[in-house]
């Protein structure tokens, strides 16, 4: 039990952060508005959770210009993929235990 709980990642202890990771797992990259659309959250809320995930280097941010408009692309890092997979495996184990 302790071993499993060790793999439950505190960084994913929140629905929105979990949502960001899920969406980025299956998409090469997403911009801010698409993420907002998918998760149905407010700007500020999403931004703070993105920052938290960026801080632990689970996602990376790429800024560029499309014409004159600034556009920010988010993608998952190798570390993020690894940690997320571990987290899901731990969740599954916890459920199958019961």
């Amino acid at each position: 039990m302790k071993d499993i709980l060790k793999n439950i990642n505190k960084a994913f202890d929140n629905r929105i952060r979990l949502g960001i990771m899920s969406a980025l797992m299956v998409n090469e990259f997403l911009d801010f508005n698409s993420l907002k659309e998918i998760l149905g959250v407010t700007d500020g809320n999403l931004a703070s959770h993105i920052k938290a995930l960026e801080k632990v280097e689970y996602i990376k941010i790429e800024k560029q210009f499309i014409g004159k408009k600034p556009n920010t692309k988010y993608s998952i890092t190798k570390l993020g993929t690894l940690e997320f997979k571990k987290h899901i495996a731990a969740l599954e184990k916890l459920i199958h235990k019961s």
Partner: protein
Amino acid sequence: MNYFFYTYFVFQSTLTMTEKDYLQDLTEIKSIMNKSTRFISLSGMSGILAGVYALIGAWVGNMLINSYQNGDSNFAYLPINFFEYILVGVAALVLILSICTAYLFTLKKAKKNNEKVWTSVSKRMLRSFIVPLITGGLLCIVLYQYNLIGLIAPFTLIFYGLACINASKYTMGDIYYLGISNIIIGLISTQFIGYGLYFWALGFGVLHIIYGFLMYTKYDK
């Protein structure tokens, strides 16, 4: 004793709570993965209607061709070029009607499911669908240019099938199999030049109706 029960209950309830939470986490992860890569709102009913339009179109086309060849109606006096335009017009009408129906039904379904129609996913789906379709369309114009009329029906079926397969990456449902079936029918029809209309009716008509019906019972009900 009291204290023991109290702690026992607290422990028990937190445990079941978190279990439920974990399960919900997993469902949420799955739903977001699906929602962010796949467009769910394609309606089965619009597939059925598109098939019906195609069958009616094929029937009208067949009738026109027959009466033209028999020379027993006013059509027979039309110059061949003009007659071909009428046939193309019928096909275009079927296409436009199908697209409009698909759009309207998708709009309705998306509203019902509280989804947006124009998301980055649906745009990506449309783009991946349109590129093979336009390629095929242009190629058919080239076939017409070189007077290879007999190959037009097979090519439309094959490229429509390719478009479906390409779009299937971004949508729920079995559009992939619709694509494969259309490609097979298209390839077979290359060996039966002159029967293009029947293969068209089979590919665009019958297959759409079957597909739409399957989608309708599987996802819309």
